[in-house]
């Protein structure tokens, strides 16, 4: 008998975006409110896992045309690069800089290099979680 999970799949499609948005919100809010790259990354991968549960792994793999292992290295590169970037300006390793900018759409916004570092964390966490789940899920 073929199971019919059309309700689950439909809801999953909707909820996926809600979770993703929440995760992105957590990520961006990190510097001022609870959240940050780590939780954001975990929730993002949680959203992907939800899709994997609703559909099957191979379908999802087609949808995400990235190898999550690349995501890990990309994240590490971001983090380490942000930390090392300070060396160019002749300040100690890991010195962050921030300022407030007047941006066209967002208005007065604070931009912080720590955000780039957090982006690295975010990517690594997604990459790590997804690699683990995918690897274990695919193994017999």
């Amino acid at each position, binding site marked *: 008998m073929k199971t019919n999970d059309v309700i689950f799949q439909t809801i999953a499609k909707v909820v996926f975006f809600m979770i993703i948005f929440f995760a992105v919100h*957590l990520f961006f*809010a*990190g*510097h*001022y*409110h*609870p*959240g*940050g*790259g*780590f*939780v954001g990354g*975990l*929730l993002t991968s*949680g959203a992907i896992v939800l899709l994997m549960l609703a559909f099957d792994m191979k379908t999802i793999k087609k949808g995400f045309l990235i190898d999550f*292992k690349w995501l*890990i*290295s990309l*994240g*590490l590169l971001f*983090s*380490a690069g942000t*930390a090392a970037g300070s060396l160019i300006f002749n300040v100690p*390793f*890991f010195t*962050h800089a*921030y300022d407030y900018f007047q941006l066209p759409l967002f208005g007065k916004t*604070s931009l*912080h290099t*720590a955000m780039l*570092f*957090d982006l*690295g*964390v975010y990517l*690594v*966490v997604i*990459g*790590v*979680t997804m*690699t*683990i789940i995918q*690897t*274990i899920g695919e*193994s017999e």
Partner: protein
Amino acid sequence: MSLLHWAILAPFIMAACVPFVRKKATAIHTGWFVLILPLVLFVSFLQYLPVTMKNDSIMQTADWIPSLGINFTAYVDGLSLLFVLLITGIGALVVLYSIYYLSKTKESLQHFYVYLLMFMGAMLGVVLSDNVITLYMFWELTSISSFLLIAYWFDRDRSRYGALKSMLITVFGGLMMLGGFLVLSIMGNTFSIRELAAQAPELNNHPLFLLAMILILFGAFTKSAQFPFYIWLPDAMEAPTPVSAYLHSATMVKAGIYLVARFSPIFAFSGYWFWIVGTVGLFTMVWASFNAVKQTDLKGILAFSTVSQLGLIMSLLGAGSAALHFDSLDDNLYTAAVIAAVFHLINHATFKGSLFMVTGIIDHETGTRDIRRLGGLMSLMPITFTLSVIGAFSMAGLPPFNGFLSKEMFLLSMVQLAELDLFNLETWGLLFPVLAWIGSVFTFIYSMIIVFRVFGGKFQPEKLEKKPHEAPFGMLISPIVLASLVILFGLFPNLLSYSLIQPAAASIVPSIIPNGGQLDVHISFWHGFTTEFMMTIGVVIIGIILYKFLPKWIGMYDYFPGKVTLNNLYNASLYTAERGSHSLTKSYMTGFIRSYLVYIFAFFITILGFTIWVKGAFRFDSSNTASIGFYEVGLVIVLLIATATILIAKSRLTSIISLGAVGYSVSLFFIIFRAPDLALTQLVIETVSTALFLLCFYHLPKLSRHEEKRRFQIGNAVIAAGVGLIVALIGISAHSTKLFPSINEYYIKNTYTKAGGENMVNVILVDFRGFDTLFEIAVLSVAALGIYGLIKLRLEKGGEQNENE
């Protein structure tokens, strides 16, 4: 680096060249090239004779590790020159002998000569070093090269056994000696033997004096094969005969004698030195001569005889130390003991070297060394017979050979020990001459066995592998030279008196020599009907009688318990050490991780509990604790129930779920204690890890998936309770002792002003202490890649599986 240093290093340099010579010049025996070196060294060292004869010395220093006070100091005085001449002189003869003894085609000559040259250089280094560390270095080099030489025929079991045994024993002694050297240099604040000797009186009153002395004597006794360390020497006889002749009769075994002689000026003031060196030497002499008689292997007899003769020299050195206590007497009787020791040292090197070479010839020409199969070789090998008569009679102490003179001097010294009262000798003193005499009788017997069992009696050709005939002339040169020296020194002993013996004896007991003066050394061949002459006559008469009736009493040896020997002790202790450490390791290295965890936790409890108890570190201070609220109590109860459920749960699924409950309660705690970031993370992570646990549970093998309750083990419970208690105690104590204010004030003040953020936790994570975070994500990455690798890479199943499948 002076010429003297190069002389010491020359054998090593030569050793490096030997393999090339062997490879390039295949037509000529490699030994001929090697022979040049000891000859040159011998002649060049002869030039120092005029210096040492005036009791002068030459010292050359080259820096080695100047910052530690370790220098390569070469020091030539009478004693070292004597040894150097023995080493190079007999070295040259042995190399010459080995040219004829070892086959050019069958043996790997490059190994032999490399080891031999290494040994020669090391030996030169030992006797010429003034720095104890350098001395030790060369000392161990002699042990190593001797090890290599004994196991020269490494495909034989006995060779490897003998090599290992000699290595273990001599290195044991060497390490002890290093300890002694270090203690001594700490006492005297210098590594130089000469400088140490200069402050001998102060050292004598030092509390560590006895320790240093005993440790150094360990080195000397093991190397010189004294009781009870002599057991390696008979087994070292598996080496090629030139090696036995060189190392185990003339040179290496005398390194211990050298050490005792060299350190006499430092230690000999002590009565302990006299007693230890004297009695150990004398006992070794008697014991080994007694045991030599029962040997059936020619080299075995010679090995025991070497041990015995070394004991004789050692006891003379011990007796000679008494000389230092009578520096007022003009006619010092005890210096005679030192002179006798030096004289016998030379004599022993000559006659024992020739005897070993003779044995090698017999072995080479008949194919056996077993005296039960030999006999009647007198007419077949006349020259060899003559040589062995000279050597053996000299060893037995018969005139007109040099052994007679030194044996007389030995007996004289022992008799004098009995007469004078010193160190409470009056009660035990009589033992010295009696033991010496008994030892001499046995020495006489085995010397006769060597000559008459091999050359006398009936010829038994059927027992021999080869048809015996006289050795080639080249092989006979070396023993002939040595035997001629035996006779020469026997007839004209005073040739050596002032050239070699006087300077050497003067270096051993320097304090009794008047400034610029010389010891009175006059060895008279005939000295009247004295006690010692009577004793020698007694030795000869009793010896002949005992030898004649040897078959009657040889059975006596069977009464000695065969099991209770030092060899068995050595073997048993090696075996016990090996088995013991094996079973000890096996007893605690169980292979079960739970055992190791028990050790780790037990250690943890013991160390921390002990520290808390000893330091009185437990504190309880409730003044800065917060009040307990309603939610906390409720959560703690939930947490406790969940934890208890994990422990007593029957099914694993219950445990996993309870663990999840624990994790979620913890995240609730984070909420109560106002840590929203932690709570968020904890919630998500707990979910993920519970899911992973469930995955593991699902994949458990079907067979062992019994849902059974964990067995209760009292030991585990005690350990677990102990760890919990200790951690709780430490936690409470740590909380009750606030030594300084927390750093958090800084973060609170600067989170916004300096880092431009408001979430303090996140600002700390990415900004203030972002370095940690960087490596935490690295840890995560490694974990993910590790899991990927573990799952995808299954090499044991079907070779190299593609990870991209």
